[in-house]
């Protein structure tokens, strides 16, 4: 068996967080984890000088490689460790450098072309949810026989693929480590694989990677993997740790947590609320749900926010004043006509300027037609339906109209400028009253906008369910309501001062909006939030609001949903969060499903809970108090095994462990005879 890690970073590129490479730490890593072969795979670069130094110093076979950005993902490309292989990778890195100047990635087609004889290379794409994974569809675009393995994100995915019937790719698991100078030994990755081979040559490795049965997580060839770096092997599925109180269960869990990266750790009692004050805990719970839904609400109010910001800029008072002034001046002018002098008699004296017309849609239409013409070249469907259209003529006419419009506007601008320069001089020379300017079009437009806004707010104030999402047996219901009182408004806009005078205007949306803006309140919270109130309810499967116990269960469901983006899930005594001693069926089902995506470790002091979840592997912890101090034992094995053993080979009966877990011993067990215990008892 040979242990390999074919994904190691030694150069900090723009795709990594900045780090300084340490060859000493690479030496330590390889020796501590007893690795037989590594590959240096930096993002899109290969530094031959650094590589030669690593090959000289590291006591393991070192293979040259690159991690390349291909369309929609990352792929490792590795060659043999001799001078030919090194030269191939060096050349590939030179060639992709030029290509990456133009685009952010290399297409698969070009990658194949750049690797003149692809059979000399080992290609390992990221797959199965590892960040930057390539989909199977993309992998299939590779010529057959070039890709036969893929890098998975964690041990559970490794296990799933290794045992899977349909998936053709062999799973591999590597550290993807940045070997830097401030790395602590505790942080050395535990993610490597074993290959059942003798010689460490690329051809042998490639042959092994084509055969799933030659790839393992551990040297023994079982399916367990070291979760602490100290030989504490766990199963890439569900592991349950049981034991009486103070036997070191949480300590063991913390050890696993610190030895692995990207772990979701749900601590004991984390999900329990203070049950003494029901109202307060409901309020707190609502707050949490509200926080989760924040993004949804922001999206929901996006368009409303834009409209409110536009409406807030409209000053109808100014428009009204301008109209009054216009009518006054018109009347005055009519009365004074007789008194007109030679200046006032000219037509230009009171000529109104050309109104500035809003931009027409011509420009966007032309742009859309151009996009359509371009897309038609690639899209068969567009071609099918639109090939009859004479786009050339259409475009020609639109462009011609657009230019005419531009030309007309330009000339009108010149005329208005002439009026601007003539009128003030004429008017200053005359005693006649002038007619004041009044933009009727703008006034009408503003009135219409405000009317629409008022109507919209009125309809949005009617209570409405705007979202209903399911998490397990629960659903989250978000309802949009009108704000019911000045007190609610005050709370929402977080102002210590009184808001009653603002809230009085709540039924006149435009006036209310202007008042808010004038008092500077809108900017602090976002104008849109001052219009509506949102209610968040979590309902159980019967559609009723959740009880205290159900709230904890909901929180666990939510935490579990969140765990999908992690590499490992640890849960410390979930039963401490529940009224019911047995975990609910739904949660068991969810945890079981999750264990196919990432390894799960659950600590419980209650063996019943432990077994009801149907673990793949169990641990039983025992503390023995002796005169010179306490001794701790960690026994482990399959749930249906007769015996459990510890690292030193000490053995206890599985049935004894089960009995030991019941705090009140065998009597309690007899009282609660459940099938699952009998399985174990019969084994014992």
């Amino acid at each position, binding site marked *: 068996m040979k242990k390999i890690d074919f994904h190691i970073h030694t150069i900090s590129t723009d795709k990594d967080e900045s780090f300084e490479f340490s060859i000493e730490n690479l030496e330590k890593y390889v020796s501590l984890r007893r690795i037989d072969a590594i590959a240096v795979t930096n993002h899109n670069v290969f530094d031959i000088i650094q590589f030669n130094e690593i090959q000289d110093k590291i006591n393991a076979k070192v293979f040259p490689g690159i991690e390349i950005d291909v369309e929609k993902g990352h792929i490792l490309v590795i060659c043999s460790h001799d001078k030919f292989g090194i030269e191939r990778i060096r050349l590939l890195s030179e060639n992709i450098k030029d290509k990456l100047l133009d685009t952010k990635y290399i297409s698969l087609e070009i990658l194949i072309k750049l690797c003149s004889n692809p059979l000399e290379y080992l290609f390992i794409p990221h797959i199965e949810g590892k960040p930057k994974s390539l989909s199977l569809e993309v992998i299939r675009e590779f010529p057959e026989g070039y890709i036969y393995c893929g890098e998975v994100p964690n041990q559970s995915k490794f296990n799933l693929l290794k045992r899977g019937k349909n998936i053709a790719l062999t799973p591999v698991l590597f550290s993807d480590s940045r070997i830097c100078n401030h790395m602590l030994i505790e942080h050395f990755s535990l993610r490597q694989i074993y290959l059942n081979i003798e010689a460490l040559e690329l051809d042998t490795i490639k042959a092994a990677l084509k055969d799933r049965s030659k790839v393992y997580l551990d040297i023994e060839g079982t399916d367990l993997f070291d979760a602490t770096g100290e030989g504490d092997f766990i199963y890439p599925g569900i592991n349950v740790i049981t034991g009486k109180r103070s036997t070191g269960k949480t300590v063991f869990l913390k050890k696993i947590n610190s030895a692995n990266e990207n772990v979701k750790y749900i601590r004991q009692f984390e999900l329990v609320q203070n049950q003494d004050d029901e109202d307060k805990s409901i309020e707190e719970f609502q707050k949490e749900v509200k926080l989760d839904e924040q993004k949804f609400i922001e999206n929901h109010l996006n368009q409303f926010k834009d409209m409110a910001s536009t409406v807030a800029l409209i000053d109808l008072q100014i428009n009204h004043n301008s109209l009054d002034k216009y009518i006054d001046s018109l009347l005055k002018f009519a009365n004074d006509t007789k008194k007109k002098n030679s200046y006032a008699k000219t*037509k230009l004296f009171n000529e109104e300027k050309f109104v500035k017309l809003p931009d027409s849609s011509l420009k966007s239409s032309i742009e859309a037609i151009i996009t359509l013409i371009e897309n038609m070249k690639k899209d068969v469907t567009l071609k099918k339906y639109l090939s009859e259209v004479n786009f050339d003529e259409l*475009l020609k006419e639109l462009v011609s109209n657009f230019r005419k419009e531009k*030309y007309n506007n330009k000339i009108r601008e010149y*005329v208005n400028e002439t009026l601007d320069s*003539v009128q003030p001089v004429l008017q200053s020379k005359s005693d006649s009253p002038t007619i004041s300017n009044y933009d009727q079009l703008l006034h009408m437009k503003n009135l219409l906008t405000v009317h629409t806004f008022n109507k919209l707010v009125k309809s949005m104030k009617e209570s409405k369910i705007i979202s209903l999402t399911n998490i397990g047996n629960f659903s989250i219901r978000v309802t949009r309501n009108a704000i019911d009182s000045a007190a609610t408004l005050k709370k929402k806009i977080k102002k210590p001062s009184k808001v009653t005078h603002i809230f009085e205007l709540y039924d006149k949306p435009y006036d209310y909006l202007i008042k808010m803006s004038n008092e500077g309140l809108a900017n602090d919270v976002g104008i849109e939030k001052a219009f509506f109130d949102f209610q968040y309810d979590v309902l159980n499967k019967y559609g009723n609001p959740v009880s205290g116990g159900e709230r904890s269960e909901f929180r666990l469901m939510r935490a579990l949903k969140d765990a999908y983006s992690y590499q490992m899930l640890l849960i410390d005594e979930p039963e401490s969060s529940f009224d019911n001693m047995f975990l609910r069926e739904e949660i068991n089902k969810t945890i079981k499903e999750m264990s196919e995506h990432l390894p799960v470790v659950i600590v419980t002091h209650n063996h019943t809970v432990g077994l009801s979840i149907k673990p793949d592997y169990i641990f039983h912890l025992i503390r023995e108090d002796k005169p010179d101090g306490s001794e701790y034992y960690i026994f482990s094995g399959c749930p249906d095994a007769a015996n459990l053993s510890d690292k030193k080979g000490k053995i206890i009966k599985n049935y004894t462990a089960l009995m030991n877990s019941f705090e009140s011993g065998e009597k309690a067990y007899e009282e609660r005879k459940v099938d699952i215990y009998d399985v174990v008892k019969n084994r014992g």
Partner: protein
Amino acid sequence: MMLLKIEDNKVFFRTDKDKEFVNLDEIGKDDILSIFKKIFLAKEDEELKDFADEFNKDLISNDAHKIIYDRLYNKIKELWENRTTIIGEIKNEFKEAEEKYFTK
């Protein structure tokens, strides 16, 4: 085509060659628009003086005409000088699309 002329100490205008000249008192924004368009689209061999008499305050005694024509002539001159640039700017919009898609 003369559109603006100084005669008898006054200024007269017309919007087309077939039309009668009218006293400048009567000029409105639509008339100015028509005059500007004609000037804007002048042929290459035409000159500004073919369209409008140059402003000369000594030749105009009507004070209102003096004020209006002073500014109007200045604007016409500005338009005359910039018209090639403006036409160029307008034609430049979607020039690439024109070259790429229009059938010759």
